[in-house]
């Protein structure tokens, strides 16, 4: 009895030191030396300032930029700390809607997004790609589908005063296909695309 008590206590302490300190600290050292950019969050800089992370989505509202997917992240209400208010792409507190498929409020959210997209994109062609009317799992999805980018091209081109073909070329250059031709889904990183737009057609 007493022997087992001692053994289990000591085993807990020894394994805690190995798994809880030695392992993560050693990994931090090795990872930081081998892959410093990734280990520190794949941050993206422009003009020497951090504008975000290549892996984390951010909000774009100007018509001259491509917009990301809806995000369900929230933040503490500045007026009442017991409440949460919507705060899209809050990268300090990832969250999803967890909306039920049979929920009336989910259906009305989707209907509102459809109406807003149609108002913003009067010259868009065809129906709206489903990823533009659904909130992502993390609330921080950095990507949209190529169809969702294509849907926004007329608006962005008009706002920038450039022709659609030029914008489409930039979209194509920033589209990532399936890895090895079969793994994952084709996608466009919204931050990378918008930075490329600024670079090639001037800042907005």
């Amino acid at each position, binding site marked *: 009895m007493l022997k087992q008590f001692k053994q289990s206590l000591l085993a807990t302490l020894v394994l805690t030191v190995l798994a809880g300190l030695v392992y993560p600290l050693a990994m931090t050292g090795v990872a930081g030396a081998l892959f410093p950019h990734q280990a520190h969050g794949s941050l993206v800089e422009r003009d020497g300032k951090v504008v975000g992370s290549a892996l984390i989505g951010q909000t774009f509202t100007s018509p001259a930029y491509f917009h990301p997917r809806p995000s369900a992240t929230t933040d503490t209400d500045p007026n009442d700390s017991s409440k949460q208010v919507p705060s899209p792409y809050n990268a300090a507190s990832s969250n*999803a809607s967890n909306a039920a498929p049979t929920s009336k409020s989910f259906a009305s959210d989707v209907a509102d997004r459809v109406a807003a997209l149609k108002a913003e994109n009067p010259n868009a062609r065809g129906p709206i790609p489903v990823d533009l009317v659904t909130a992502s*799992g993390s609330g921080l999805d950095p990507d949209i589908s190529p169809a969702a980018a294509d849907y926004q091209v007329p608006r962005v081109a008009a706002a920038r005063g450039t022709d659609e073909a030029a914008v489409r070329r930039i979209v194509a250059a920033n589209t990532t296909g399936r890895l090895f031709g079969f793994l994952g889904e084709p996608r466009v990183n919204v931050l990378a695309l918008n930075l490329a737009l600024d670079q090639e057609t001037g800042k907005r």
Partner: protein
Amino acid sequence: MNAAGLLQIIVHFVVLTLLAIPLGFYMARVFEGERTVASIVLGPVERGIYKLCGVKPDQEQHWTAYAFGVLMFSLMGMLLMYVLMRVQNLLPLNPAGETAVAPDLAFNTTASFTTNTNWQNYGGESTMSYLTQMMGMTVHNFTSAATGMSIAVALIRAFTRRSVRTIGNFYVDLVRSFLYVLVPAAVVFCLFLVWQGVPQNFDAYVAATTVEGAHQVIAQGPVASQEAIKLLGTNGGGFFNTNSAHPYENPTALTELFEVVGLLVISAGMVVAFGRMIKDSRQARAIYAAMALMLAVGVGVCYWAEAAGNPAVFGPEVDAAASDMAPGGNMEGKEIRFGIANTAMFAAATTGTSTGAVNGMHDSFTPIGGMVPLVNMMLGEVIFGGVGVGLHGMIIFVIITVFIAGLMVGRTPEYLGKKMESREVKLAVLSIIVFPLSVLGLGALAVVLPDALPAISAAGPHGLTEAIYAYTSATANNGSAFGGFSANTLYHNTALALAMLFGRFAVIVPTLAIAGAIAGKKTVPASAGTFPTHGWLFVGLLIAVIVVVGGLTFFPVLALGPIVEHLSLAAGSLF
């Protein structure tokens, strides 16, 4: 559904099997105490640990002492982690200034991580300090997994012995599982993840000024080291609130593939190791086939349901067709880089094993798509299952299956040369009954008690599914959730913690008792009357027993939850 999606799913199964076979061979050597390639480096460390802990590695234990060791070791880990969370505000490595965790949440979380469940009633990046994540979460990810593996090893070992009173030494099985299997796998996987973009740092949260000039705070931390073991140990507790849907936990298509393979591979390797240790790989192939078949059916149904989307909500102005330009389907709660097929694969794998990590939100799945993860858990976490736990759970079902087959032909059932008598069958049934008792008992309370009800967010049948999912996940030690269920309340923190502890230890103790009984038996040679436990007839019978036991128990609640919801949605009614 399309060819591109199906191909990706098949690739998962192929890569899994190709990795599980050599890993299983290696693990068999580890568990049999033989020297391995890693012994040169790890041998001295192993002996050092025994010395520090006062363990004599060749001193074997009776099953009661083995079980007592498991319970004491788990209790010590629980206490240490509880204290750590309660005083994290006073300790270093807390750049985000997280406060002490409330007592009920700390109790729930420590029960959750000790039992390999990793149910999370908190958002990691907004609740836990870096030190808590490392010395609490990461440590338990290793130790709860190694504990599960030890129990499976003890049970396998019992079958290989005859007329012996002991089943091995818990601390040796624990340390060898930890040191020779989990640590090397985690080191390799961690570095792979960082290469692909998972952060590993102790930086303060990054304050960025976005392209449009807004302020964005980006959470950081030692993510990769925890992510690696979270999956390999079938733990599932995310560093971030949204788990493997978060781009920092699962940034690319390649990490997605290997996260799914990672959460399956040690459990699958345990089956291979089982075949090696009993020196009859046909037995292992039968079990592997039963597991893989059930997983494939689950993935297929989930993929079909999610790809079909949700026409009642999306309407004609939304394009939900899959193509090379868009993932289509039901994309609510899913990420673009994974699309529908990879999300379905992850959901089925994470609930077939007891992992519970998610790369998309199960609460927002279509009714049938969301029923797949629920059913996988209700079948008892034997579709590869938790590391170790899945295999011993499956062996329990095998005992029931040979018992039923024995009843049909009127002979004493045998498995691997051991007669399965009244004591073993009673213990097997006991360990199976624990599960529905907790799920349906506590689940029923959750939908009637005034203290429990406010947690349910969805109206209509989906609300019932949310509550049942929570108690199924907790008892099955899975940890995935229908996230709309707000369980961070005094009532649910306590009730879920009890469900997790019950679901873990009330199964482990009878399993070790069975191991003790089997080790003490003589081995009888197979005769003409022995029911063969390999081949497709047995695989079919085993799956049938698992499905019938789960089906008879849970069909009524499934009918009231997801099935009614599916029929309402087909009729176009929302709640």
